């Protein structure tokens, strides 16, 4: 114990740790009937940590070439001790991370936490969700199986609809005109280098903003929050978050053991596309919407119009902190509250309808 005290003293002497200790000791989390919403951000981060850990383990064996990718994943799940578990946890954790990020985003949205002065937190969170989806899209191709190959072909083909830059973007993503080994190698690069780097920077900013500004309390809950004793961040909230993380870990272990992530068959670029290609579930609502659109609408290509609408919708969602002027009596605008529910109903509705086979 004395050694630890000595080490602390030595560090404190050099780095002046007192302000940090002071900050941590006084950091609190408001307590009200919707305090549960504060756990989703941390849970998302937990899944991210799992992703990093399992991703590093997978890197030890994975080979990013069209010739060896599928076989290397096959090797991981059949020969490497606990390889099946690591790969399955990586895949499941990716999905749970996106799910948790969506829950975090909507809870923040409905509590109106995006409003001034927290615009930067909202924007960095929005970008982080985009990066997470980028992780999902790029990681999906890496096992180089039939489904991921053709889903990537369909997915990358969408960028070719972008006016003016479409052809260039397609070539940039694919590393050529078709999905080939070159695409796999660059997706690998995005997945393990570019996206992690951007995520690290943005996440650091996102966390720093939260620490600087503290937790937001919606105006309707302010009174309750004032009345009740806040939760001390260290150690109470951390321990509570620990319970949530353990719950996430239990879910991951159960899913990985009972529903191991399928590997499928090796991609064959010369084979015809299998029927019923679908992207990952978090792209389904967009995928099914684009499929529903007619070939041409108002003289414009339906798919282009759909992508334009998604881009515009995304922009509105991004700019909500600026667009929502709030109500005179305090609180967020009613129109944006309704918009939130509509967007949530649309995403959840289309995703479930797609799984139920409504769009077949």
């Amino acid at each position, binding site marked *: 114990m004395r050694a630890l005290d000595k080490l602390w003293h030595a560090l404190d002497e050099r780095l002046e740790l007192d302000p940090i200790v002071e900050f941590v000791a006084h950091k609190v989390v408001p307590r009200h009937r919707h305090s549960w919403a504060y756990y989703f951000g941390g849970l998302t981060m937990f899944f991210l940590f799992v992703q990093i850990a399992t991703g590093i383990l997978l890197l030890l064996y994975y080979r990013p070439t069209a010739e060896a990718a599928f076989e290397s994943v*096959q090797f991981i799940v059949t020969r490497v001790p606990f390889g099946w578990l690591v790969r399955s946890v990586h895949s499941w954790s990716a999905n749970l991370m996106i799910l948790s990020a969506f829950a975090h985003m909507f809870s923040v949205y409905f509590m109106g936490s995006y409003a001034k002065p927290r615009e930067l937190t909202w924007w960095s969170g929005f970008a982080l969700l985009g990066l997470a989806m980028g992780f999902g899209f790029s990681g999906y191709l890496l096992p180089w199986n039939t489904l991921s190959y053709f889903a990537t072909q369909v997915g990358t083909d969408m960028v070719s609809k972008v006016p003016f830059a479409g052809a260039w973007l397609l070539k940039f993503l694919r590393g050529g005109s078709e999905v080939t080994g070159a695409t796999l190698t660059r997706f690998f690069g995005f997945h393990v280098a570019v996206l992690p780097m951007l995520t690290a920077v943005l996440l650091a900013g996102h966390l720093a903003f939260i620490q600087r500004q503290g937790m937001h309390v919606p105006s309707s809950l302010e009174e309750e929050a004032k009345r009740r004793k806040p*939760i001390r961040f260290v150690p109470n909230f951390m321990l509570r978050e620990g*319970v949530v993380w353990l719950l996430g870990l239990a879910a991951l272990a159960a899913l990985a053991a009972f*529903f191991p992530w399928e590997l499928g068959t090796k991609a064959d670029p010369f084979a015809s596309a299998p029927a019923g290609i679908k992207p990952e579930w978090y792209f389904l609502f967009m995928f099914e919407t684009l499929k529903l659109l007619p070939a041409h609408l108002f003289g414009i290509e339906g798919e282009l119009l759909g992508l334009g609408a998604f881009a515009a919708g995304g922009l509105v969602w991004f700019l909500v902190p600026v667009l929502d002027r709030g109500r005179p009596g305090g609180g967020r605008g009613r129109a944006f509250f309704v918009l939130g529910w509509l967007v949530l109903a649309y995403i959840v509705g289309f995703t479930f309808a797609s799984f139920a086979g409504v769009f077949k």
Partner: protein
Amino acid sequence: MTRQLANATLAILLAAGARAAAPPAAAAPVRAVKDACLTCHAKLSDERLRKPAELASADIHQTQGISCAGCHGGNPAADDPTVAMDPRKGFVGKFTPQAIPEMCGSCHSNAAYMLRYAPNIPTDQLSQYRTSKHGLALAKGATDVAVCSSCHGAHGVRPPSDARSPVYPTRIVDTCARCHADVALMSRYGIKGNEVAEYKKSVHYAALVEKNDLSAPTCKSCHGAHGATPPGVSSVANVCGTCHVSQLERFDQSPHKDAFAALEQPACEACHSNHAIGHPQDSWIGVADKQVCGACHSAGDAGAVAAGAISGALAKATAAETAARARVGKVKRAGMLMDAADVKLEDAHQAYIMATVEIHTVAVARVEKQTEVALAATAAADKDAAAAEAEIRYRRTGLFVSLIVIAVAMVTLALKVRSMER
């Protein structure tokens, strides 16, 4: 590099010069500068006379420079129809069925002539045709039998390799059926007229249309194309053996070969039938009702005993393979990768197929030798499935233990928080 390029250019120029200087082949029909046949016939209102002109552009002969006059004679350069279609100049409007094979054969039987256009096609069609049932009936004066144009078309003739040709593998069956499914016409020649309908129930037809396997046998594969005739009793085995080489080889080693010949039974056909050839089943073997051996053998004789042993060996291999496939499938659905077991099951199936080939020897030991191989491979796949099942149990136990550890940790943390916040 530059010198090589210069030499290559010089060689090309010399070759082009030589071709330009070469005289046209003496007997080759040269496309007429003016072809009044096509010009006039294209304008005719009578469809029967206009159609040949419309079909001309797709005709292999026309594309090779052989115009209407190549077959019909006459003078294509003349505008006056009476001059262009002057019978004294060899013009023939409509050929009699008897004249068609001779007319087509005048070029197609000429090896030297055909060499200029299609050196890889045979030139014995006419001589084969004369030996065919069609040719023999035609020689006797029948006019309702197939001649060249009945199958290949008269105008707009395409090469058989063209998918639009009536004799292309996927279309030839229906081409034969135009006459051979006509019961009234066929009854005149003592043919049932149900042969094509029967063939369409066969594995051969299924391979042709479902798998698009162009090498699958069609009518002409067994009966011959130009020399079309039913194979005789003694030649059936040779016809089937063209493709089923291993089966024929084994049949020739079997006591059935001489026995079938003595009984004047068509070898393969006796068990497999002729047109409606189905997928062989293990259940065919035996002397009971609807089992093929029962046609000659009866319960208790040596053949029936051998059939029972063969049937038993096959059934054992099939049952073992089915069970192993089910077990492997089950662990696959539980998420296990079973590629190695799949290979073993494939080996087992290959050995089973070899056993079904060995049936043609009717030697029980030879069949059993293969079914033993199949059983060994199946047992190995089954062992893999058992190992995978054990692995699943291990994983689930591990999960159960880890969930307990996680639950204990959660409860401890929750209690700690509660005690702190009390």
